[in-house]
């Protein structure tokens, strides 16, 4: 009996040693940890814009909008123009700086930088951003409403694009083109400069204002909002959660369509592509919208970037889930669009303020605001 017990104890001991040894055979954890990213930004202003002597002075209390796939957060610079962020998760960050000009309320000091790679394990990322005064840039796309209202019968015909004249002078819409880019999917994508020849490709819809570039028949005054409606009618009669666009400034009208609605009281943008017989409707959650001055109207070979006035790309998911395609000379990032059939719209944070960084320039509004901010 004793020998059996003694033998058993030995076996037991041996097996326990095996078990405890196995406990050390697990996969090894990574040696590097997340959440340790550091970013230090200095925001400076070159005062040669207001003084003949070039002096870089720190910009105090500037708004710093930091965006990544995880978050968009707002910070403010200290008295040395510095903002120091730590414990950041590893990601690609974009930063936009905004600060009201100390003397001129119509001027905003702006700087932005995209694709700042903050990796937790690497050293602190230090960068300096020089703000530049921005104002009166001219005509911009101020609001895009494409999601459709809250409904359950696939109604989205109340789409509109809102333009804004942020300059101090009267601008003219004559001959300007409004385009949707959604083809060229086999190449670099809609709105990309396919052969690096200075134009953007993938136009699917082109509508234009009457007249020719340079003519002065259709003014847009400083601080004026202009609403371009797909159909300038009161959509609330069809869908109660929709919008009344019967007072829109312009209406997209496809003269090649036998069915397109035309409000006779609202002037039309007309279709330049006879092969397209549908109304100017844009995708609900991802698309590229561009306006150009109309000097390059040969859309087949792409639209010359030098004629582009403004362009905005919007996507439903952040990078890398969705690929950015619009040429970065027009828009360096894209707006994260609201959900379809939500009634929400994308609008610039400040009217007409365009830093070519849509992710920071635009915000999502719960209700569209056609004709006002």
């Amino acid at each position, binding site marked *: 009996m004793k020998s059996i017990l003694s033998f*058993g104890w030995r076996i*037991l001991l041996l097996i326990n040693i095996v078990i405890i040894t196995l*406990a050390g055979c697990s996969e090894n954890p990574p040696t590097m940890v997340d*959440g340790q990213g550091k970013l230090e930004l200095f925001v400076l202003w070159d005062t040669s814009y207001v003084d003949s002597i070039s002096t870089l002075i720190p910009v105090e209390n500037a708004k710093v909008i930091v965006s990544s796939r995880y978050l968009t957060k707002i910070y403010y610079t200290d008295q040395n123009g510095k903002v120091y962020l730590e414990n950041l998760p590893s990601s690609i960050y974009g930063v936009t700086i905004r600060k009201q000009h100390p003397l001129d309320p119509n001027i905003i000091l702006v700087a932005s930088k995209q694709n700042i790679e903050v990796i937790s394990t690497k050293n602190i990322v230090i960068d300096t951003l020089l703000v530049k005064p921005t104002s009166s840039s001219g005509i911009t796309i101020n609001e895009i409403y494409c999601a459709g209202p809250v409904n359950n019968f696939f109604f989205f015909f109340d789409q509109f694009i809102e333009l804004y004249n942020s300059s101090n002078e009267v601008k003219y819409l004559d001959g300007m083109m409004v385009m949707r880019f959604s083809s060229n999917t086999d190449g670099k994508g809609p709105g990309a400069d396919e052969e690096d020849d200075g134009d953007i490709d993938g136009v699917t819809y082109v509508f234009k204002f009457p007249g020719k570039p340079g003519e002065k028949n259709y003014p847009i005054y400083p601080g004026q909002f202009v609403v371009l409606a797909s159909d300038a009618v009161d959509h609330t009669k069809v869908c109660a959660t929709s919008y009344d666009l019967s007072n829109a400034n312009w209406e997209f009208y496809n003269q090649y369509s036998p069915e397109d609605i035309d409000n006779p009281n609202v002037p039309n943008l007309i279709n330049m592509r006879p092969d397209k017989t549908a109304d100017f409707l844009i995708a609900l959650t991802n698309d590229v919208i561009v306006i150009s001055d109309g000097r390059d109207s040969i859309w087949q070979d792409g639209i010359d970037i030098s004629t582009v006035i403004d362009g905005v790309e919007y996507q439903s*998911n*952040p990078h890398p889930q969705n690929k950015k395609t619009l040429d970065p000379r027009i828009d360096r990032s894209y707006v994260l669009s609201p959900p*379809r*059939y939500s009634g929400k719209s994308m609008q610039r944070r400040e009217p007409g303020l365009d830093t070519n960084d849509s992710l920071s320039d635009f915000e999502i509004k719960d209700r569209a605001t056609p004709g006002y901010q």
Partner: protein
Amino acid sequence: MKKFYLLICILFLVPKLSLSQNERISSMGNPTIALRDFDLDLNLYDFGKNVAGLFEDRTFDVLNIRPIIKTTQGDYKRYFDYDKSFTYALSFDGTKVLKDGVFRGYVIYEIENRKNVNRALNRYPYSGIPFFIADTTVGDFIYSGPRVGFQYSFEITKSLYSGFELNYQLVDGLKSVYSRAKSLWRNIDGSLNLAYKFSNDFLIGGKISFLDNKESIEAKSEDLFDAEIFNYRGDNFAFKRRSQQIKQTYREKSLGYSIQSIITSFEKLRIGLKSEYSNSILKTLYPYGMLEEYEEGHSVFENLLISMKAHFSPLDNLLVGFESNYEDYKSWSRISELSLMNWKWELKEFNIGSGISYRFNLIPLILISEISLGKIISDSSKYIDNKFVNHNKPFYLFKTGLEYEILNQIFVRFGIQNGKFGFEPEKGGKDISINKISLGLGIYSFKFIHVDYYIDYGKIRNNLNQVNKNLNSQLNLKLFSY
């Protein structure tokens, strides 16, 4: 967001076989150290969870039919938890002694209705991994599905026993409001077991167990809205995904080893020893392209358990019990695309316990009392949130109960539990007090059918005076000839 501390839960414990509780034990305050009971014997099957021991443990046919109701509600909860939960289950658990072996099989159908689940779409959002998904709404979830399994044990040669088990569970979940998420939770686990009886005084067993668990979640708005979900990588950081249909999958595979031995040192003293080790890998995946799945997160769990239990019976109607356990759970998780660790935690628990049960000679009464003392040491480093939490707190748990035969073969039972935990790892609460009262009835007057019933009511209160209340009730019809 409500701050929560250490987010360790029981996901990788949950899928393992947990048959319905024994009503007699539950109604007497759930003693486990010193009660003489059919399900608490110090043998390879009851103590060691070794299926090879089924052959010697079960010597008669029985079918247990159990309707079960469980409810829990209260404000001691975490941010993504539900307000209330109601569980209804019906279980059939039968044992059949065959010519060459013993077979045990069971079928359970469970329906769980969780009320006001706050945003979480995972069945267990606090599963010890930082990767979980949430939408924006508070809504009800209904989970339902069957659980089936069997165990079979037989004697290979003289004194050498083998046993194996296989369990399968399928649970469908559905959220009542946007994003109308559907969840499909599937679990397969099993084990291969061997046992050798050197003598009646010394038995040794070994077990290799496996587990394959998969939870697939699909958020698909039934109206025209896009579904928008947040992929969390910690408490604070999440990225959005939006589409008409969004899928996410959690896949866990685990392998475990265990040895057990039962030793009778001398006539009155019986000792059980057990050590277990398991290792599992849980991958968080979402579809990428048409066929591929993108690994968002990778989590590794390790669990080591060393346990000892002893029964000393100096008199026929007296049983003194002693137990000691050491458990070490640890886990780490990484974000796969960058191979950066975003959470690492370790939870150690050590406890010793002792108890005594006495069956009176003059009156048909059994009394039982037990106490466990221990310590919980936890260490959590949630790097992505820059949150580092340590706890090193003691606990005690006291149980006492009785069984009284009021009429011939009719028993009433009563039990209470009282405990205090300096730190409770599941919900992260501090200074937790636990109080539970239970009542039961056993009617064994008939030859072929026995009836057991228990009901218990418990309260768990933390230092913020948040309270959770539990009410459980279970009936068991035992059929001995079927």
